[in-house]
């Protein structure tokens, strides 16, 4: 089964919400839409669900055009950020509701509801009303409803955004297992890079109405094809600075330089480029081979128990270093950090990445 977007454009009130999106989703693993609020994730989900129609372009399911098909004829499930359940029905009836609509026989309904409830650990609450449940349980009820329906397309629009951190972690771990082997295409919208990574599968990075890249999640994370994708897919934000290639050296500002040989910039012409370094490739110490020392004044320090984060000033730009262990930084001090060269990504002035 595949869901294909062919140059889908969506305009509304003179604004272009989606710029010619083309990609093909498959049921193997999750398909994550990653991007900031208002980047266009929800618009894409609405187009998939049929709640919105494209201005231009086609949407095909298994090669069959469903661009003009209304939601109720698409066999989709949608789980929203806010816990949407029928308040007057028990949890059992909530989960059973799509089956009742489809006129599934009663015995079948009971079996499938109990199965889904068991998977999502809702069995003890089946007789309760949603209002008597915690937020996590309410959202699990909504998820169970999406699971029993055996839809072709399951759309999850930031389903964990309103849950507690720990609960989110737990459900995020369970979700891919729940949909494994069900043959449904699962689409998951999120604004958190770490969530995309944990869910695995494929990711489409969305920024200002454009799908900047679509592919296996790990590939997008480690080998983004442009700067925008790298920015969207970095938490904490990626350090970005202009560099200059002259001869066989790469210059970052006036005082920092390293050899171009062995990097993606080895064979490109001299000129201005941009370097992107994720904060965990900026190490607090250790003069190891393959690193470049940079010295900056520490502005802010943060400690998360197992990791240390330092914000420092380098040539008027704020850089971030994130590292394992506890480092006793002092605000206001000059500190020498080490950039790992293998962690550097290089971009042309137009934003595309230079690959070796």
């Amino acid at each position, binding site marked *: 089964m595949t869901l294909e977007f062919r140059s889908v454009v969506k305009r509304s009130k003179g604004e272009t919400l989606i710029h010619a999106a083309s990609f093909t989703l498959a049921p193997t693993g999750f398909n994550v839409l990653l991007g900031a609020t208002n980047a266009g994730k929800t618009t894409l989900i609405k187009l998939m669900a049929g709640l919105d129609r494209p201005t231009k372009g086609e949407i095909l399911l298994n090669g069959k055009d469903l661009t003009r098909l209304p939601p109720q004829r698409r066999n989709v499930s949608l789980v929203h950020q806010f816990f949407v359940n029928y308040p007057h029905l028990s949890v059992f009836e909530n989960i059973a509701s799509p089956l009742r609509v489809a006129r599934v026989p009663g015995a079948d309904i009971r079996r499938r509801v109990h199965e889904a409830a068991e998977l999502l650990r809702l069995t003890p609450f089946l007789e309760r009303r949603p209002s008597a449940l915690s937020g996590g349980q309410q959202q699990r009820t909504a998820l169970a409803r999406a699971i029993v329906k055996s839809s072709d397309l399951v759309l999850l629009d930031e389903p964990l955004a309103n849950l507690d951190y720990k609960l989110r972690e737990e459900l995020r771990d369970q979700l891919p297992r729940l949909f494994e082997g069900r043959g449904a295409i699962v689409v998951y919208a999120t604004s958190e890079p770490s969530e995309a990574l944990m869910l695995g599968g494929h990711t489409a990075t969305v920024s200002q109405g454009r799908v900047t890249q679509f592919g296996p999640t790990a590939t997008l994370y480690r080998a983004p094809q442009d700067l925008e994708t790298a920015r969207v897919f970095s938490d904490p934000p990626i350090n970005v600075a202009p560099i200059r290639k002259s001869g066989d050296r790469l210059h970052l500002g006036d005082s920092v330089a390293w050899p171009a040989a062995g990097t993606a910039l080895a064979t490109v012409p001299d000129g201005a480029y941009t370097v992107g370094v994720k904060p965990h490739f900026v190490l607090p110490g250790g003069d190891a081979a393959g690193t470049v020392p940079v010295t900056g004044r520490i502005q*802010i320090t943060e400690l998360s*128990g197992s990791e240390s984060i330092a914000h420092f000033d380098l040539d008027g730009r704020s850089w971030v270093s994130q590292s394992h262990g506890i480092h006793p930084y002092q605000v206001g001090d000059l500190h020498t950090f080490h950039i790992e060269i293998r962690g550097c990504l290089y971009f042309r002035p137009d934003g595309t990445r230079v690959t070796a």
Partner: protein
Amino acid sequence: MARISLQDIRHSYQTIVAKAAEYALKRVHLEWQDGGAYALLGPSGCGKTTLLNIISGLVAPTEGRVLFDGRDVTTLPPEQRNIAQVFQFPVVYDTMTVFENLAFPLRNRHAESSRVDARVREIASLLDLDGLLGRRAAGLPPDLKQKLSLGRGLVRDDVNIIMFDEPLTVIDPHLKWQLRSKLKELHQTVRTTMIYVTHDQTEALTFADQVVVMQAGEVVQVGTPVQLFERPTHTFVGHFIGSPGMNVLPCEVSDGTALFRGQPVPTETPAKAPADATRLELGVRPEHIRIAPDTGSGDDGIAVDIVRVADAGRYRVVEAMAGDHRIHVLTREDADTPLGPARLQVDPSRTRLYVDGWLADGADTGRA
């Protein structure tokens, strides 16, 4: 600025309390130093927001006293406590400009207009809102609105505390980093006592010097981020802090040695269990376990089956099964862990015994 003491606070939302379980807060006793950055961390419904409202004066505690610098303020309303609060959803006055919003708390207290003007400009530049002073507040994006609500707290120089109630809920991850760093920077500049309430461990640990972990109306542990990470005094803290949290494995104790599934596991100090203990567990963080190949011999670690390796970007999360028990291990981004049988070796100096949930050795700081 002030030192804050919470003395034997208990609170129930019911008027008549029959059972201890009906207390939203069960005897909280805390002492907060002037100028500190504190966090209240816990899951929904743990009582952290109730505690915050008791400090701000929006809720009067059923029992106990609140002192600011030794002065009893328990019965004072919020407006007489000189505090500032930033809420989960940004609160701005839609009809006013950014300038008027910032000036509002000063004008309500009849400050001179020259002082209002100077102060507003000072705070606006601190928060990078200088260019927006003439804009209507209604049209701002959520992160700027949240900065503005923070600014209204900072604009008065006589505030005792600034409190944050999950202030980053509606902010995008990228801006979350910026805003969080800004808060940290502000604290380092203005040195007002700040209390940050959240369920997000990262926010709590990165912001605060001291974190108060709460569960079910009780304080479970108070400590620095490093203490909470390195030495959780309760399995709940171990689980709640860290991602994934601490592995908690049931064990037995015999002759000073902890046994997990019959296999000895080395611990920091000889394992001692009181006779009346009902639940014995070992706690070890995923960061402190090493994966070794399965050599088949008996003593080189816990025998497990590695079932999954998840790529978390900067590191990998390995999932190992020992019988029915799931154990998480963190490895480096470039580590290659084959699925199948393996041995897990724990770092003895960071493996500890928990009796009925509480750390067996060491000071029981949480129940002080």
